[in-house]
């Protein structure tokens, strides 16, 4: 049998299409030159990417107890990948990290806030004049790496 990713219905299929749709929206944002180039779906997918990154890189302590907070969580995808370790191993992130003075944690948070600010301007009916090119490239690399790993799990 030749395994086919797009027709797979196994346990990784939903994660795979989730990552695909987020990366697609990010690619469209990287190419966009006017506000009209990005649709409502693109913005929603970028919002999902923010939620995904926040959950993996910056989980917030909640007011309710830890058990209740974890048990109440909505279904979330995970590939059992430590995103911090994955980032450290990405040359494009490493290069960007070395170029600045910020620590690792601050740099990872900057990836998220850059995307949040970009989305915030779009929602405010403005087109961001300076899209965060470096951050977008790193996020693209992260999603591509996650996709490769998901495909391996999906097809094996």
């Amino acid at each position: 049998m030749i395994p086919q990713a797009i027709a797979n219905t196994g346990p990784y299929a939903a994660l795979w299409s989730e990552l695909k749709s987020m990366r697609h929206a990010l690619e469209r944002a990287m190419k966009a030159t006017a506000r009209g180039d990005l649709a409502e779906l693109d913005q929603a997918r970028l919002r999902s990417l923010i939620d995904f990154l926040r959950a993996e890189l910056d989980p917030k302590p909640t007011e309710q107890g830890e058990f209740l907070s974890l048990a109440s969580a909505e279904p979330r995808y995970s590939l059992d990948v430590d995103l911090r370790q994955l980032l450290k191993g990405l040359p494009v992130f490493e290069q960007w990290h070395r170029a600045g003075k910020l620590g690792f944690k601050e740099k990872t948070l900057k990836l998220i806030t850059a995307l949040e600010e970009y989305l915030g301007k779009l929602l405010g009916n403005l087109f961001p004049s300076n899209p965060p090119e470096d951050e977008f490239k790193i996020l693209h690399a992260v999603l591509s790496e996650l996709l490769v790993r998901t495909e391996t799990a999906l097809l094996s």
Partner: protein
Amino acid sequence: MGSDPESLVFSKSLALVQKTKKRVVQVDGGEFPTPSSEQARTLLLAALTALGNPAFWPPMNPEALYSSLIQIQTLVEEIEASNNAHIAWPLVSCCDHIWKQFFPSGEAQIFYSVMTEHNYGIGSFSFRLKRLIEKVLPPSEVEKILKGQNLYCLQLASLEDENLPLYANIGHEFGHALYRSRKEAILKLLASECDGVYKLIVSELTRLDPALVQKRKTKTALIIRGIATELFCDLIGFLISGPAFLLSLHEMAWGVDQGTWRAGLTPTAASIHAYPSYHFRFHCLRKRERTASFEAEANRVFKALEKGDLCEMSSYLSTITADHSADRVEVSAFSDPDNDRLAVESAITKHLGQLKVALEGFVARCWNEFLTSNMKDKEFPPVSTEDVFQLLRRLEKDILPNIIPNNTLLGVPASFSAILNASAIYRVHVLSTSDNTSGPDEIYRDIQKVERLTAKALEVSYIQGEFKRWEADH
């Protein structure tokens, strides 16, 4: 002409949208067992129409679209299998009645389909559809399609299967829908009982490997939640069907190790499934006062049955093993690069005793606090042992178990629960007293007899009940 995979996949997806749409339209609505199947079809058609709308195409990722469409085929199959030919309409009509007792304002709806396995299962059709289309359609369109609907699909064993012994499990499946709709309140009860033992397990996980504790504690919390959900659903099954649910659960446990707590780790963290041991499940249900009072009453009343071994069925429930002292924990994983399953398994095993105490407390609070006395006493009163006895008397003479005598010529139609309990008890009696030397023909005949009598009784009793309601209204 180009060979760009994205545009090729997109064309392939559009063809699949159209093919799927045609398939859904072709389903014969006249064969739907209840009107809510049409609601499922309408939802799916609205989603497929939106996917075929060129206005939404530019931002869609073709691969995500195709993948979603492939997964949508499962939903189509559920609608296709929602067919009167394979589903007993009196059964689903009774189910609809019970469903409305839980969701009186229509906050959740249900339609019925058939499962390929010889079992029962429930899933939120609308939620699954939402998860599939939200990757490829804008949120405003998803909202327009779903219109806040909360539609469930109960998959039943096919009518052709001998599925009677499992009817009582439908109540357990309804429990899953009730859990989802009242999740916040139920989880608060769980947290107040399980916080302490959860902390003990987390300490153990930290001792095993502090670097991996974050994800492992998430998995542990979800395993505890999964186990508690099953126990909650057992309570609902027991609330609806009483001892018949215990007998159903007993039959589900045949052939497997009944002292193992099982959990399976999955890529979607919150989809982690976990099950308490059958021994512990029986233990929790046996502790409910309704079980003890049914047994005590049955010991007294069943004596008047003609068949001596049928009288002995009054104490059958107490013979089901509920000793969970030697239970063990088994965690499996689909993909587990860090060996989380072994760590979680070992930490839970270490504190299994405390976990059981906490879960018993949770079950007791669900029964005493979450299930209101109105629901227990008025909506789902305990099954009458006397009624079950009257139906058993009929069954032992091969008479339809549908009427409870009340000193009138007609009697009163038996309740769904009474029929279910009488037939479950009679069926176990047939299985336990069969003379295997007489060959399969005789056992088959005896089992068929009770199955057919029960199916017919459910049908007749349902129609009688409906007629009586109509008569009262007019």
